[in-house]
């Protein structure tokens, strides 16, 4: 059974609208992550969290907010969506690991199109 799930799987939004992408994990991992994936850029980290109530900025946080209300749930919020935010978004979870050894487990992705 899938341990990291995302909803919706596909979303079409209008420019200036608010978009919320949701992620749920059953791995009981402390850390959760939001990435976007664009051709030619690989995976880029937007926001991440060390646990419920915590959010941290990743490498490309501008235009995004994050919310971690519980161990299991992590949301990515686009308050004013723009066409440049059209992308595939991945959520991941992982344990804190010394020395970078912690594996990350990814969800299936959400394809967002902003018109």
């Amino acid at each position: 059974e899938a341990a990291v799930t995302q909803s919706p799987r596909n979303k079409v939004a209008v420019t200036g609208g608010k978009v919320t992408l949701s992620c749920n994990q059953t791995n009981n991992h402390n850390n959760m992550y939001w990435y976007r994936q664009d051709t030619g850029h690989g995976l880029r980290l937007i926001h991440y969290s060390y646990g419920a109530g915590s959010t941290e900025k990743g490498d490309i946080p501008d235009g995004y907010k994050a919310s971690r209300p519980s161990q299991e749930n992590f949301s990515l919020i686009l308050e004013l969506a723009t066409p440049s935010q059209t992308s595939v978004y991945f959520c991941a979870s992982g344990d804190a690991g010394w020395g970078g050894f912690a594996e990350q487990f990814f969800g299936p992705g959400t394809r967002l199109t902003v018109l």
Partner: protein
Amino acid sequence: SQWGEENLQALSIQEGEDVTMNCSYKTYTTVVHWYRQDSGRGPALIILIRSNEREKRSGRLRATLDTSSQSSSLSITAAQCEDTAVYFCATDWEGTGSKLSFGKGAKLTVSP
């Protein structure tokens, strides 16, 4: 950027051939992750190599890590059609133990 100059590589081979994918990074790391992403799915870890290992094998996969040249490679022996995927290397270059930086990836296509 943490990564050497690279664009998304595209590799096409025939079934049964061997293939090697490379990545180079700019900042010291103690571990390199290799992830595989199938079409329409999220990435999944396939092999992880630590700085004291230099080489690690898992089935038909072989990863190497050269900390002196700051580079890693992933080799697949006798590739099969089901090896078709995008392969990413990733490092914890900030040493946080929690954040990974992903390379741009190599798209491998294996034809029958």
